[in-house]
């Protein structure tokens, strides 16, 4: 295998390759999960709680079952297996019993011939509710009645034992001497609202009974095998009898890590012995998945006159909502990154996530790092002002680097070019202000035509962010890939790759085929559909881990197949095949000591990624409206497997971070969501999103296959902070809460 690399038509690792799903998605031909069909299919519908907190009494289905077209109405009594499930801690009822803890919680299920019949019957399910006072304030939750009989903190083997009420998990990190004083001290309190993933494809899937008691579930999800691990026990089936297949995913961003319709669809399908499809409406989608944790953060930064940070205190409070979801991991991340990508010898980090009756929160792009980045970057700007130092210079003086020890005790190893991304971003040329007059579309307020330049001030902000790659804290994470190498009818070699990695729009399908083509030196590579039935787990399309993990697994499987091919003389006869499956594991991580918050082994996190961003905005300072003018960014990518896809991730991720800065917020009143639609949950349009100048900083990660790092999250982590900084520069206001409202920008 030492011959010079053959030229491949379809692109190998490092080349810009067009997405296979790009044109079908643009033209509307791509089949999403909501397009699934099966002969004899019924439609499922979920009866949901109208209360944020209530005791559940009698559930009367007698009228509903007699409604036209109805085949089944199910409640918690019909769940044959375990009644609770959860990603990391099983506390969420498949269907509510005793209590409902959030607005929109599933209480019963209906299957009918037509979706309309299912909805009408759902209205006839009579549930006796006794409303209870909802716990809606994350601070007060610590003293109110417990919402759950058991909680993760009651498992002191894994989690710090925290006696306060409603604590899902708390982390206390003591690093160096937290009493260390500095010449200059800045403090601040920050708040973030609830952001939604706002994927365009609502939750949907199709469950098909196999006639032998098992079920096939076709669903838009992020991790097929972990779905199966949660679904099977609730159905009281062995895992082999539950096969999960990936259906077209219309965006995920963390919001499809938790289950939505999987168990429900399967229950209805097994009960009726008919295929059952469930598609959430938009309103249901907003209550049907977890959101980004809202946060209240208090920070104190102490530094010396020379601009060196000497001590940071951070208190982070996250509202996890009604169920644990991945809160236990989000809060750990928030604690890990609370001090930012800065070297600081002393720190005290106190991070807590609580249960409330607010919408459940869990995974979303950035995963705990977004919230703290907004706070630590505001602090760094405050510190720069107090020290009369250039904000970029201050960041350079404190930039974290390999060899430094993080507050959780982990020594940074591998690649982390923080200073480099700062410099490369700072070097980008900021565009000159555009002359007036201009089309209103190029002014704050856009198509609203509110200004011709009156009240408009320009602001420039700079921010730096970082987070981890892959799963952390001792999680035994792995990815499997299987390669079939065979000879076609003409004797030419071809390969089929099996990998259960979820294509959620990030482009992992392209990565898998690029890696396989590179390793096999073969153009003719096809990727089989993602499923639990032909290959082991690929792990989650989360934590910016998929590129790293599939690259490792696919490369290993390909190399094994090539080794075998060599042993067989380099050719295969028609009909002959080589079939190998390999499992790849990233370097091991260790949990934190529950008491000290210090890592108990070499690393808590596998590796890190960082990104710097400069944002230019114009603010109409009379009306509080904004136009984002330009974004420049330098991102640490290790090595770009597909530079075009990387740029796509940077632009999309930036838009999501900008959305949180300017407009994206799930609003609630007493735990009830008041804007569950795209009419009132606003996400950026093309007029809100500026052009992005992106520099890819390529410093290969020694532990990663091809040196490639994941790239999906850093732009989201840093963009909120960068845009907020620019808004502060334009208005001279503190702006301690995102999304920043027009009222905040004008000081109303």
């Amino acid at each position, binding site marked *: 295998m030492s011959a010079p690399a053959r030229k491949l038509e379809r692109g190998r690792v490092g080349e810009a390759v067009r997405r296979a799903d790009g044109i079908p998605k643009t033209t509307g031909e791509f089949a999403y999960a909501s397009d699934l069909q099966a002969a004899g299919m019924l439609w499922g519908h979920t009866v949901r709680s109208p209360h944020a907190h209530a005791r559940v009494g009698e559930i009367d289905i007698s009228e509903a079952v007699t409604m036209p077209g109805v085949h089944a109405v199910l409640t918690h009594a019909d769940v044959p297996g375990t009644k609770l499930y959860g990603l990391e801690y099983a506390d969420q009822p498949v269907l509510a019993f005793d209590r409902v803890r959030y607005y929109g919680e599933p209480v019963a299920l209906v299957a009918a011939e037509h979706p309309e019949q299912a909805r009408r019957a759902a209205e006839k399910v009579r549930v006796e509710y006794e409303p209870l006072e909802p716990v809606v304030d994350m601070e007060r939750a610590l003293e109110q009645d417990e919402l759950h009989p058991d909680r993760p903190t009651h498992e002191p083997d894994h989690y710090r034992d925290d006696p306060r009420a409603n604590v899902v998990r708390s982390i206390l990190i003591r690093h160096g001497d937290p009493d260390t004083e500095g010449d200059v001290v800045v403090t601040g309190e920050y708040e973030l609202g609830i952001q939604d993933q706002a994927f365009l494809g609502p939750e949907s899937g199709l469950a098909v009974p196999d006639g032998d008691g098992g079920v096939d579930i076709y669903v838009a999800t992020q991790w097929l095998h972990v779905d199966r691990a949660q679904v099977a026990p609730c159905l009281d089936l062995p895992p082999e009898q539950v096969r999960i297949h990936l259906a077209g995913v219309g965006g995920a961003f963390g919001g499809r890590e938790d289950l939505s319709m999987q168990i429900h669809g399967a229950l209805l399908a097994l009960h009726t012995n008919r295929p059952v499809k469930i598609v959430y409406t938009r309103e249901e989608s907003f209550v049907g998945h977890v959101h980004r944790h809202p946060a209240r953060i208090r920070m104190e930064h102490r530094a010396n006159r020379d601009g060196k940070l000497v001590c940071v205190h951070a208190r982070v409070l996250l509202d996890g909502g009604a169920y644990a979801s991945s809160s236990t991991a989000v809060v750990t991340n928030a604690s890990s990154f609370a001090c930012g990508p800065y070297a600081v010898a002393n720190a005290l980090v106190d991070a807590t996530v609580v249960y409330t009756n607010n919408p459940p929160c869990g995974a979303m792009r950035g995963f705990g790092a977004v919230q703290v980045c907004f706070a630590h970057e505001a602090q760094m700007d405050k510190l720069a002002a107090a020290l009369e130092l250039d904000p970029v210079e201050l960041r350079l003086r404190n930039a974290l680097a390999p060899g430094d020890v993080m507050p959780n005790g982990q020594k940074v190893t591998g690649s982390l070019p923080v200073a480099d991304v700062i410099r490369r971003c700072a070097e980008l040329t900021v565009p000159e202000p555009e002359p007036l007059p201009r089309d209103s579309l190029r002014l704050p307020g856009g*198509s*609203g*035509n*509110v200004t011709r330049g009156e009240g408009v001030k320009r602001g420039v902000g700079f921010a730096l962010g970082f987070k981890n790659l892959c799963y952390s804290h001792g999680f035994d994470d792995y990815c499997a890939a299987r390669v079939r190498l065979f000879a076609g009818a003409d004797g030419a070699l071809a390969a089929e790759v099996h990998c259960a990695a979820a294509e959620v729009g990030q482009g992992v399908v392209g990565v898998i085929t690029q890696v396989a083509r590179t390793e096999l030196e073969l153009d003719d590579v096809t990727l089989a559909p993602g499923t639990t039935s032909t290959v082991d787990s690929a792990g989650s399309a989360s934590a910016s881990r998929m590129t790293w993990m599939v690259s490792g697994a696919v490369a290993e499987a390909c190399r094994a197949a090539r080794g075998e091919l060599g042993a067989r003389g380099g050719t295969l006869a028609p009909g002959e095949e080589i079939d190998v499956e390999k499992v790849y594991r990233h370097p091991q991580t260790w949990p934190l000591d529950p008491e000290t918050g210090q890592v108990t082994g070499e690393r808590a996190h596998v590796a890190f990624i960082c990104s710097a961003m400069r944002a230019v905005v114009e603010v109409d300072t009379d009306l509080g409206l904004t136009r984002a003018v330009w974004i420049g960014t330098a991102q640490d990518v290790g090595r770009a497997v597909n530079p075009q896809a990387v740029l796509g991730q940077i632009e999309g991720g930036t838009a999501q971070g900008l959305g949180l800065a300017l407009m994206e917020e799930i*609003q609630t009143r007493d735990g009830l969501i008041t804007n569950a639609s795209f009419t*009132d949950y606003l996400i950026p*349009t*093309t007029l809100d999103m500026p052009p992005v100048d992106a520099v890819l900083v390529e410093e290969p990660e020694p532990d990663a296959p091809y040196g490639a790092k994941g790239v999906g999250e850093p732009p989201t982590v840093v963009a909120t902070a960068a845009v907020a900084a620019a808004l502060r520069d334009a208005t001279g206001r503190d702006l301690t809460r995102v999304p920043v409202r*027009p*009222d905040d920008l004008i000081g109303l």
Partner: protein
Amino acid sequence: MDVLTPRTLDEALRLRAETADAWPIQGGTDVMVELNFDRARPRVVLNLNEVAELRGFARENGTLRLGAGLTYTECRRELGETLPALAEAARTVGSPQIQNRGTIGGNLGTASPAGDALPPLLVEEAEVELAGPAGRRTLPLEEFLVGPKQNALAEDELIVAVHVRPSGARQTFMKVGPRNAMVIAVASLALAVDRERGEIRAAYGSAGPVPRLVRAPLDEADGFPDRVAEAASPIDDVRGTAAYRRHALRVLTARALERCAA
């Protein structure tokens, strides 16, 4: 659900009178949202898209007759000279797709406090032509709008057209929303400085139960921003606060006056 598709206005009116619970549909950009959100399940839908009399606009000795089926795209492209504020408002509506489908008649039918076509038409003192079994009647837009999402249309009537005598006054439309496109107005304002009649007319949207007209003599321009802000009766809701809405109206009025003064 039955869909009735008349070819002429007469036929449409007959069907409307015969089928009391039929829902007229033109562009469908409001009706389809109601259906999609499961807020309504009309038994019958009266599809007006094939009725030629409702389409387009015509000049009739000094007045303009805007068909109920006139789209925002048509307003934007063809009425920029004669009804500039309406054309500007049309440009702020939704997205190009919505502008292609959405109509003036539909905006009147919905009668939302946030309807973007309404303030510019109020400022131009538009009249609404309705037709029913008893014949045609015309009433000022101000009287047509009776409450939030309520209008003076009778169960058996259709909106046929809007009549405007273009004032020729300098005028503009502005809309405030926290996003730069595709946003429901948090507050909006149309304003005309009518030198011929010596008055300023402004109409606000999203700042009270109905869009409302406020007038003042030309020489009271200075106090006009406050006057508009005080005339409004905004509320706090998920889209914005009452205080912000009032503030925004003040700013918009001052800016609009300046724009229309030159």
